[in-house]
């Protein structure tokens, strides 16, 4: 069985390593082969960008060499896919090579599109890339006081990031003794402070306690950089001195260009994780069109389910397991406290009040991530 994994990020890496372990003997005797194609020779721990944006981590702490994370049996190439020919079970890469497969897994992730809102890319700070996170930190350092507005695009990866950056900004300015000079103002697209109702239920009183103001049902329409005003689709306007955004996301261009899914989101079966109409094409991580959190933990749990299924297909000819929609997210509630939310298709989350212990566990996870990517956790 020729298995091709496109994407060497969180989902692709965990899938590849998990599969390599399950198919040890098939890989050794030539009955199975795993090839991975990616766009980079480095693997970034993206959640670390949040800490880079407030000066708590350095960018070089976020990277590992991708090859070093992979089981040796995986045939890894930095050669991004440019054409998907799903009817003929093959892809073509940037270097011009063609790779044929029996089973394909697509985990190409997502990208920010701040340019979708007029004025946003030029006038807002954000932290979803290394460059922008470093730039944002520099702006925070220079900031002398005023109104800091947090604005959120839809859809976005890491559903906890809007709350986390807001709490972290509050603590950052407090730490610098600037609380009396800074007003942090949070906005959110729907009618409460977070998509998850139980999370909104603890976040809102937390905002009240900390003096963070907020406005809900606020979807960005345009930014007037000259007058420093942010306008919403709902007809309201907010003056800002510093605008921080979680920009809207799309899937990768290559997905849309090849007609695999509108805006780069691939239509995916919520339990089998196969692409609609293609039983030998699995989709995982941010690039699915599933109405669930675009998060590393989602990619992780999906990868485990898909690995079990592809291995079963190699061994007994049929998949064996459904994905249950499991997601687990840490939620940083400031510099030194955190909580978490865990849920699946059937069970809503029930986050507990933030504690220091959970924060330190998240700090430990920032390092443990590399063991998780290797498939050891």
């Amino acid at each position, binding site marked *: 069985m020729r298995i091709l994994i496109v994407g060497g990020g969180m989902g692709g890496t965990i899938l590849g390593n998990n599969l390599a372990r399950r198919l040890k003997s098939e890989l050794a005797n030539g009955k199975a082969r795993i090839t991975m194609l990616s766009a980079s020779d480095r693997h970034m721990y993206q959640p670390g960008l949040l800490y880079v944006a407030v000066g708590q981590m350095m960018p070089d702490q976020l990277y590992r060499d991708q090859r070093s994370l992979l089981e040796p049996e995986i045939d890894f190439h930095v050669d991004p896919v440019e054409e998907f020919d799903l009817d003929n079970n093959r892809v073509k890469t940037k270097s011009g090579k063609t790779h044929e497969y029996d089973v394909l897994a697509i985990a190409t992730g997502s990208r920010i599109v701040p340019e*979708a809102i007029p004025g946003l890319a030029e006038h807002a700070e954000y932290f979803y890339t290394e460059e922008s996170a470093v730039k944002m930190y520099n702006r925070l350092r220079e900031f002398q006081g005023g109104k800091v507005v947090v604005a959120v695009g839809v*859809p976005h990866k890491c559903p906890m990031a809007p709350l986390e950056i807001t709490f972290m900004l509050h603590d950052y300015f407090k730490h610098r003794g600037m609380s009396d000079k800074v007003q942090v103002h949070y906005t959110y*697209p729907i*009618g409460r402070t977070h998509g998850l109702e139980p999370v909104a239920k603890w976040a809102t009183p937390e905002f009240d306690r900390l003096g963070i103001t907020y406005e809900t049902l606020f979807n960005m329409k345009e930014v007037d950089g000259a007058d420093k005003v942010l306008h919403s689709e709902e007809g309201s306007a907010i003056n800002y001195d510093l605008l921080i955004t979680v920009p809207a996301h799309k899937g990768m261009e290559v997905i849309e260009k090849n007609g695999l899914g509108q805006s780069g989101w691939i239509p995916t079966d919520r339990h089998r994780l196969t692409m609609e109409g293609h039983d030998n094409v699995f989709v995982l991580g941010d690039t699915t069109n599933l109405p*669930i959190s675009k998060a590393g933990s989602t990619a992780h749990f999906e990868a485990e389910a898909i690995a079990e299924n592809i291995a079963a297909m190699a061994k007994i000819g049929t998949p064996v397991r459904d994905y249950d929609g499991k997601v687990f997210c840490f939620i940083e509630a400031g510099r030194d406290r955190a909580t978490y939310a865990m*849920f699946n298709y059937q069970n809503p989350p029930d986050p507990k009040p933030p504690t220091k212990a959970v924060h330190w566990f998240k700090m430990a996870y920032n390092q443990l991530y590399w063991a998780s990517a290797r498939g050891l956790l």
Partner: protein
Amino acid sequence: MSDVRVIDACNTFCPGPLMELIAGMKQAEVGDVIELLSSDAGSAADVPEWINKVGHEMVSSEQVDGVWHIKVRKMK
């Protein structure tokens, strides 16, 4: 008339049905109709509230076997 695009947000908690609808509306063209399926009772109230605020049109809203079917036309 363009096809109705269905967004099935049943039994999903995060980001949630309204957020899925907002994302879906961004991809749609003016005049398109989106049908949101939601098992969350809150959707029957929070979807119309958002639509009224932004100025889209509510086509229909009904509950069938515990699932809300809410049709919305993009107006701008």
